[in-house]
């Protein structure tokens, strides 16, 4: 390519007038003209297509836009454009939760990638968000990605997919060393408030990475102290806020936004590296979400089965090896879903007495309640998405719906791509009900439906939020009704109580939950905490007390989260970046 170009630096103003500069660049074209060769329309079209692929317009034009599987909001494009143009690809993206920082960062990644400026991209995210990143990159941006775990090695070469890694995995050797040993073109850190402290393992990891471009995503760049902000900004632009001593001397070292000296000066500096949009600013409002819980009284045989399984799990769980523990946790969750789901696993565990008990327990009261509920929604003309965590429950529910004459389609992760598309198309067209597992519906447009039923409740609240996000998302125009079906006396009933009472879970904005859970501790795992409490408790009252304590931690984390949000609002001026 370089042989056929005429390069001009601004200092060499004479070169443009020099006809000698033409020879190399134009010779072969001139030869063909002189030979009287006719224009070949096919070759012309090929050249036009090659130009489309090859040319890289300015960052005020998004070359990736025609390839996207969705239409970004203007403020998201503006944020990505500002990060690329004015901030040279090093920025803190600090939009409020739910406004799409992931989209903005992925737009930047996509632009850099398509222009050949970022063959090597790393995304670090909390473990709970890695799958979501993968899905967004794949479905919305058509960008292949790979999750890096311990033992990962860079494939190298220009075709390398975007590397995704959970912060928890990435900060530990050997993955830490593998990531830090490479030179990255772009690193994206999601929930970057977790890396502001340079003394934590996550903070040290990010400081050990070498990257030309760096995007830090956080809705609350000020967590506890003003120094959080200093550390984040210094990561994207070292020296921008001076040395730590200069920063303290200029703005103080307060524990919150209150009492910051020279606030106007700080805001001006921040606007050069940070972009924050607020809901009020972009007028992005989702319709209301209404959550209701149907507590179902189990039949006597169901209650006895649940009790027996819980006792067996509790007895075997104390001191069990990790692998056995995982199986026990699964059995306990299956017991909260349906008797049908329990049977195969109980048989595998050789708990044949309980397997026989489960096989005789029938469909269960919850399933009967669901069928009634679906019939009512059908009569009202509503389409309903029913979520369950388990395939066996899904199959049992599909059989029940068929018996009841309710048109339902089943969707799960094992379906082939074409069957998945056919299922969604059938749901959009004729079927009233979509019965689906957790994995299903990812990236699918389900906004034409506004009723959702959680047939069983995941213990991990992030999973609940992901389910909500399937229909309560941009594009939804109607109020969303969420019905949680729980059997009385189950762990799910208690979890729901805690999440509702302490977190107001179903009214949180999608995205906010992770920020709250992340504040409890770096590797906090709600599901494990619940199971540990179940195993450790001597009876139901003890279990309730333990869950209540866990709930208090959640409530405290929520308070900290809200305070951080207020501090950020006070420090970061509203609007786009400074030019």
């Amino acid at each position, binding site marked *: 390519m370089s042989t056929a170009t005429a390069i*001009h630096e*601004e200092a060499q103003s004479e070169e*443009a007038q020099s006809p000698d500069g033409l020879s190399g660049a134009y010779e072969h074209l001139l030869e063909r003209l002189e030979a009287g*060769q006719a224009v070949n329309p096919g070759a012309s079209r090929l050249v036009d297509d*090659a130009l489309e*692929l090859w*040319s890289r317009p300015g960052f005020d034009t998004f070359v990736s836009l025609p390839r996207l599987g969705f239409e970004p909001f203007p403020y998201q494009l503006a944020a990505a454009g500002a990060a690329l143009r004015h901030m040279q690809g090093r920025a803190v993206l600090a939009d409020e939760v739910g406004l799409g920082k992931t989209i903005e960062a992925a737009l930047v990644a996509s632009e850099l990638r398509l222009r050949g400026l970022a063959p090597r991209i790393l995304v670090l995210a909390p473990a709970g968000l890695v799958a979501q990143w993968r899905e967004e990159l*794949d479905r919305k941006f058509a960008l292949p990605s790979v999750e890096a775990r311990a033992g990962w090695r860079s494939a190298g070469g220009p075709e390398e997919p975007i590397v995704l890694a959970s912060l928890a995995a990435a900060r530990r050797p050997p993955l830490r060393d593998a990531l830090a040993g490479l030179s990255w073109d772009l690193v994206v850190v999601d929930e970057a408030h977790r890396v502001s402290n340079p003394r934590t393992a996550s903070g040290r990891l990010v400081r050990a990475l070498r990257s030309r471009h760096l995007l830090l995503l956080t809705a609350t760049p000020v967590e506890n102290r003003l120094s959080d902000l200093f550390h984040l900004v210094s990561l994207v632009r070292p*020296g921008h806020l*001076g040395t730590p001593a200069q920063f303290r001397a200029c703005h103080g070292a307060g524990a919150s936004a209150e009492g910051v000296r020279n606030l106007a000066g700080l805001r001006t500096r921040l606007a050069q590296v940070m972009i924050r949009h607020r809901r009020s600013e972009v007028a992005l409002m989702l319709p209301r979400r209404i959550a209701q819980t149907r507590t179902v009284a189990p039949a006597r045989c169901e209650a006895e089965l649940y009790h027996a399984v819980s006792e067996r799990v509790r007895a075997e769980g104390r001191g069990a090896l990790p692998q056995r523990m995982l199986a026990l946790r699964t059995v306990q969750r299956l017991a909260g879903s349906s008797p049908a789901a329990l049977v195969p696993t109980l048989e595998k565990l050789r708990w044949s007495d309980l397997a026989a008990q489960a096989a005789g327990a029938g469909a269960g009261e919850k399933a009967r309640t669901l069928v009634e509920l679906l019939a009512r929604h059908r009569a009202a003309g509503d389409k309903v998405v029913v979520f369950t965590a388990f395939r066996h429950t899904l199959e049992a529910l599909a059989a029940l719906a068929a018996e009841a004459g309710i048109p339902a389609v089943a969707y799960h992760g094992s379906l082939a791509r074409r069957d998945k598309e056919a299922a969604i198309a059938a749901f959009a067209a004729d079927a009233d009900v979509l019965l689906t597992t957790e994995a299903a519906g990812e990236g699918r447009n389900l906004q034409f439906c506004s009723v959702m039923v959680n047939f069983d409740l995941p213990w991990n609240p992030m999973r609940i939020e992901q389910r909500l996000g399937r229909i309560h998302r941009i594009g939804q125009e109607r109020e969303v009704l969420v019905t949680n079906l729980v059997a009385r006396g189950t762990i799910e009933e208690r979890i729901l109580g805690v999440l509702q009472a302490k977190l107001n879970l179903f009214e949180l904005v999608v995205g906010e939950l992770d920020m709250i859970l992340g504040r409890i501790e770096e590797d906090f795992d709600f599901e494990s905490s619940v199971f540990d409490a179940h195993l450790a408790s001597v009876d139901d009252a003890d279990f309730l007390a333990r869950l209540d304590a866990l709930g208090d931690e959640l409530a405290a984390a929520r308070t900290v989260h809200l305070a951080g949000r207020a501090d950020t609002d006070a420090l970061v001026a509203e609007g786009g970046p400074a030019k």
Partner: protein
Amino acid sequence: MRAVADRTVGFWLRWAEGHGALTDGAGGKGGTGDASMVVLPPPLQADLDLPEALSVTADPEVAREDGALLLIPGHPLLDRAAGQVLDDGDAGIAHLAWPASLPPSAACLEAKARDQLGVDHGRIDVAGEPLPAYLPVLRLGVLVSFAVSLEERFQERQEAWVDARTGLSVGDAAGARFASTPWVPGPGPARRLGPDLEAAVRAAHALLDARARRRMEVVARHGASAREAELARAEAYYAATLDSVTRRKAAAAPERQALYEEQARATEVERDRRVAEIHEKFRPRHELRPFRAHILEVPALVLPVAVRRGERRYPFELTWLPATRRFLAVSCPACGDPGAPLVAGRRQLGCRACLA
């Protein structure tokens, strides 16, 4: 998304077909198939390090499930094919169709010539019938790459349309009109006005380069302010660091003085290096890469005229373009200055400068 994806794969398949590959044609025709099959000839297999038969797609899910090669923008195979196509370029001659309407009469053209191309102290008179001819117009396309800073680089596609006899621009509007006029397989019965290809290419290149320079000036302004800001920040940072070293040196014991002096020198060296890096980072450049040179044989009418001043007559030729319904701009017959208003002098026809 699907349409663009199909176009991407379609491009590569057509390129591969041009190098002897066999394809199922789905991608090339923008079909709705999930993946397209392609069989490569041995030289292409070796060159691209690909198997003889493979399927390609632009859909990541199809690639994942069916094992097809994922060809999306940025893929080295696409970049390589695109680079090669652009290096080969697109050159040739094409003939534009004559307009279906009747050509204007000599009298009508005379009136238009007087209206459009006034001559000081003279009058344009028609001196014969308009003759059909082909005017060679050079269409030169280049990709201009701008680098305002290390981070900010972009490319723009630019075209120039020039009269291949004189090198004078025919204007972008006329170029757009020519681009939308259908082509015919060969020339009709008309005189061909001979081009000066090399001079025309030079003239078109100069036009495009001048345009790129003007564009560069605009975009460089942004780079300059970013450069000044970065320089100021770096200088403030190093000034503070040096100040701190100086203060610590003043309070330090004599045996530590040399240490601080060394630290200050190292800081100054680092500062100078950093400042040089910033200047390098923001050094603006631009680059022209030609990808197209077409000679379009454009239907024209050559009108013999005479410019009259009293009894004096200066014979002249004007070129009427039916496609744009305008005469081509004329250059001074004496000095060749393009577009200068003509003056009928007592002894010659020329521009004001020639007659001064």
